[in-house]
């Protein structure tokens, strides 16, 4: 029997949000196929902006990139006039995937099934046998190519990041991002970037578990033990959490304190170990570029990171209730010199699927998924730092997670239960 979540006209009532709000998360949201389907409608195809590409990935006229918004396939193109376009990658005829490559450069996109062809804006430009053969078959006089283009999306850019939306009513991108979030994007995307490559992870967990992870500074020194193992950990980093007014986006930022204070670890936490040293510390050598680090999440599918000299955007693509793909796109700046480029390549050892510091993040989502599936009565407990949702000057907090769930609950139309 399938659950029908309540809200927005759904007829079932077996799902309601706990009265504690974002401080309790019903595990059902991580495995229920009906909730997953609603997310596709209300979030990914709803009145919000989804990150789809960097402008640097579609720099030249004809360049294209195949990607997804939620689980809907889309194509991003640069047209002959230099404009950016996005359309659903589904032939207007009978639904075949038109663009079957990850990226490339083409003047037109043609569906192989019946050779319907489209220009870079998604307009239908060619239909074989439109008039039939020798007057037999074909479409009628009223067939109008302009009514059968690809489903186009709204597109907007901010500092080289391309976003798309299914909604004609979505607020302007700059407002969606919000001033406090734009400040961090302005800082990182301050000049033209150069893409250095991609990595991909296939994670057997719900996509929202990854958002909990990247909004959670509490786990950083406890799950990720690289620094502690090698005696490198700045035991009490200074930092905090900044959110937008809706608490749908956030920034976690940190920088080392001037004075080391190991007392937190020596009081018994297991994650401080002594006695190991890096045989080759060159992996940590970098150049002063930004102060500290930051990890920013832009609802619902983008993470922006600056960790030492590794710069990346991460795209989260839900594939099923219990599966998502995580794509890292690493970049530097066009004006990086050889040494800087080498630093970025070497520091990439620290992050991503084989990242010495943070390879565990996808795995952490998986071990939650494995345990929560099926139990409709159980919830998590998200009260580190209290129950409020507010910016904080502390990293021992789950405030951004609570903020995320509050916004998610409201946007999904889930109501608090008795």
């Amino acid at each position: 029997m399938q659950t029908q979540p309540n809200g927005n006209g759904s007829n079932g009532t077996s799902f309601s949000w706990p009265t504690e709000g974002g401080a309790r998360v019903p595990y059902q949201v991580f495995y229920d196929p009906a909730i997953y389907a609603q997310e596709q409608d209300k979030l990914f195809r709803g009145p919000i902006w989804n990150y789809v590409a960097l402008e640097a990935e579609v720099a030249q006229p004809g360049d294209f990139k195949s990607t997804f918004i939620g689980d809907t396939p889309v194509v991003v193109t640069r047209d002959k006039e230099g404009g950016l376009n996005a359309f659903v990658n589904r032939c207007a005829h009978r639904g075949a995937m038109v663009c079957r490559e990850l990226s490339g450069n083409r003047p037109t996109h043609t569906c192989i099934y019946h050779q319907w062809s489209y220009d870079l804006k998604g307009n239908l430009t060619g239909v074989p046998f439109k008039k039939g053969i020798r007057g037999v078959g074909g479409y009628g006089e009223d067939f109008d190519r302009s009514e059968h283009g690809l489903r186009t999306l709204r597109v907007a850019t901010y500092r080289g990041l391309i976003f798309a939306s299914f909604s004609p009513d979505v607020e302007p991108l700059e407002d969606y991002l919000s001033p406090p979030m734009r400040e961090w994007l302005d800082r990182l995307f301050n000049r033209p970037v150069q893409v250095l490559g991609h990595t991909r992870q296939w994670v057997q967990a719900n996509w929202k578990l990854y958002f909990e992870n990247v909004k959670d500074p509490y786990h950083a020194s406890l799950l990720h033990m690289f620094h502690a193992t090698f005696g490198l950990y700045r035991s009490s980093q200074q930092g905090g959490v900044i959110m937008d007014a809706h608490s749908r986006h956030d920034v976690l930022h940190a920088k080392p304190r001037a004075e080391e204070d190991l007392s937190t670890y020596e009081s018994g936490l297991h994650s401080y170990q002594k006695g190991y040293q890096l045989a080759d510390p060159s992996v940590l050598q970098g150049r002063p570029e930004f102060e500290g680090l930051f990890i920013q999440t832009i609802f619902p599918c983008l993470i922006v990171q600056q960790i030492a000299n590794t710069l990346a955007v991460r795209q989260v693509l839900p594939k099923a209730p219990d599966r998502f793909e995580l794509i890292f796109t690493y970049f530097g700046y066009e004006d990086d010199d050889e040494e800087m480029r080498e630093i970025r390549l070497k520091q990439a050892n620290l992050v991503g699927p084989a990242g010495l510091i943070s390879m565990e993040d996808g795995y952490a989502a998986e071990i939650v998924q494995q345990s929560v599936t099926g139990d409709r009565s159980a919830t998590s407990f998200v009260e580190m730092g209290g129950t409020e949702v507010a910016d904080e000057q502390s990293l021992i907090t789950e405030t951004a997670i609570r903020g995320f769930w509050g916004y998610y609950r409201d946007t999904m139309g889930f109501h608090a239960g008795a």
Partner: protein
Amino acid sequence: MSGMSAIETRFAVEDLLHAYVACLDHDELEDWPNFFVEECLYQVIPHENASQDLPISLIYCDSRGMLQDRVTAYRKANYYAPHLYRHVVSGVRVLGEDNGVITARANYVVLQTHLDPVDYGSTEVYSAGEYRDKVIINDGVARLKEKIVVVDTSRISSLLATPL
């Protein structure tokens, strides 16, 4: 270099490959850096990047020390699901030799068997790809000057902790 015949060189390269993957499959990672010379390159790069001349790697170590650090992190720092690796190597080709450095290529497949309680005992194809090796033979001992692992399986299942 050593004045070995082509067939002796080929055997030496094949023996090195088989010993290398046995070391990984038998969880003898402490020996793994010793398959490399001190100044070495071990790079695991997705085919997606290699084919587009994009330089980002999954793992990029340019010294034996960095390989040792990987092992220490694997044993002491990183968390990952308990698993077994089983490498299958085939299509070994010795492409040539230049100044004592032998160039060789081989295909690999890694089958991963899960040992966690949820998937215990199930096996999946974890990774397929190509080894692009540069080998030096000194005093009858073959070592890797360079091992570039071009990973066809760009989409990494969960994470990459154990070396390929």
